């Protein structure tokens, strides 16, 4: 099993944001996590990526326990998350944003060589900018990008850390219909062509049902259902939570 959690919990005071969640992600699988607002989706992401430490339970990646590792160690092991509210480096250029992430795999505290000598890092950054279709805007300051473009830059930064698992937190939030479809295509391409394992939190049901291999439904911090998109949308419990009692 590639990534799995064992009864993982996170309490904020009396609030049980994530409550004994067990789930697993197979290699090269694209799995979506859905659920109403406040179901604990983002918190679950933060527990896996190391932003928060779980109150209880364990997280395993490639059969090694990663429960208490700090964010930067988990990132180096190959799990990278993108942020729901974009977290880019606003006063650096688009290119520099991606290059910072790319250089993390090569060097940290090299204060002597000029960055233009990091040939492979720079080439990789440009390749990624092509993938996320920001190559034309490489010299723009990140703060001048549109919302949708920033979301793509988010993904670009995450890709530059060479992840094995990509955690995408609402990548299409705030995008127009056309933008959403393009973004879904991009995610599918990353999964199919690069073989990335992807964990996706998403509100747009057409995206989720269209591209996921499996879907996990959370409600009030607990797992409500898990299965293929078909199974989940036929599940009576899920329908009750999403559509109300009949």
């Amino acid at each position, binding site marked *: 099993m590639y990534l799995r959690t064992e009864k993982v919990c996170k309490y904020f005071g009396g609030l049980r944001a994530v409550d004994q969640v067990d789930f697993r992600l197979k290699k090269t699988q694209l799995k979506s996590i859905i659920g109403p607002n406040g179901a604990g989706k983002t918190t679950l992401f933060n527990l896996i990526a190391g*932003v928060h430490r779980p109150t209880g339970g364990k997280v395993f990646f490639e059969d090694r326990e990663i429960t208490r590792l700090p964010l930067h160690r988990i990132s180096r092991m190959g799990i990278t998350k993108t942020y729901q509210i974009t977290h880019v*480096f606003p006063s650096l250029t688009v290119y520099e944003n991606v290059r910072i992430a790319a250089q993390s795999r090569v060097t940290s505290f090299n*204060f002597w060589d000029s960055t*233009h000598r990091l040939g492979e890092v720079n*080439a990789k950054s440009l390749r990624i900018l092509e993938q996320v279709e920001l190559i034309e805007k490489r010299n723009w300051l990140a703060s001048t990008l549109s919302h949708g473009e920033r979301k793509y830059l988010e993904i670009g930064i995450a890709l530059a850390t060479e992840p094995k698992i990509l955690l995408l937190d609402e990548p299409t939030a705030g995008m127009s219909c056309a933008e959403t479809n393009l973004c879904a295509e991009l995610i599918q391409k990353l999964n199919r062509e690069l073989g990335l394992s992807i964990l996706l939190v998403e509100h747009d049901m057409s995206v989720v049902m269209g591209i996921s291999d499996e879907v996990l439904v959370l409600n009030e911090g607990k797992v409500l259902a898990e299965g293929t998109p078909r199974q989940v949308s036929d599940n009576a419990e899920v329908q009750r939570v999403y559509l109300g009692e009949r």
Partner: protein
Amino acid sequence: MERSEGDTRPVRTLLKDVQARPGTTTLWVTMAVLAVLPFVISAPLASEILIWGIFGLGFNLLLGYTGVLSFGHAAYFGLGAYSAGLAFRYWQASIWTGLLLGVASAMLLACVIGALAIRKRGVYFAMISLAFGQMLYFLALSPLKEITRGEDGLTRIPIIHLFSISLNRPRPLYYFIFCITGLMLWLTWRILHSPFGKLLQAFRENEERARACGFNTTLVKFFSLVLSAFYAGLAGALDTVYLGYVPLTTLFWLTSGTMVMMTILGGKGTFLGPLVGAGVFLFLQNTISLLTPRWELFVGAIFVAIILLFPAGILGTIRDRVHAHQMKKLKKAADAA
């Protein structure tokens, strides 16, 4: 669309606009200006500007590029000054030993303060560094009076020689400091264009994202602090050589405050900002204090005016305008395409 791994040629051509080899024109122009400075203003004033400029280059790495405000940099500056002064006075140390001791002691202190305070953020870090700074001030004032001479400052420092040239004459002293300034400017230039330099800026822009990219940001902050103490210690030791004694005020919080002011005045986060800030500050202070004993009043008013005109500091505001202009051009080009 996909570029193959070995093919670096087309990337090279693209790199020209993305990031060309950093030009060194700024460095050479600055050095040319500084070379003639003692013919425009008095050599002692010019020396003082360079000393505070070196201090500022390091402080700016921390405040301007890493985004960490230390309000206790007097501790590193003062400790550098005292270490060099004590070595000169009690051991008749050579200039190189004095400078080395100043730098080493300041960096060591930064390691200690860093280890204790580095996890604190924002204003908490500023306050803790202020507390450490004041602690050193009061230590030098009274418990260590026997060695530091307390309130009188450390006097009776012998004349320092550099290869048999005595450094109590203004011009030779200036050009000695000028050479060191050149080295420090070059070092800063290299740091800013290095992967670590970019990492500092990433830390300033978004610490959590930098961590999510796999960087140990606590260490980044720590190294940035120690690095800036390196500059401060060197500047402190040079100040001892320049003044011929060590005033107790080098350790006082006002020294830290002056540094913050100079950096903000010149433009934090710009390469030459601190040097310009130190120049403007000290020039105004010197000129106006000749005319009136109430010089603080006038200098203060001028600072307020400068900050109103240049909200991001003199060079900071100019840089922002240049950036805005470049962005406009890029947007126009994108619209045309």
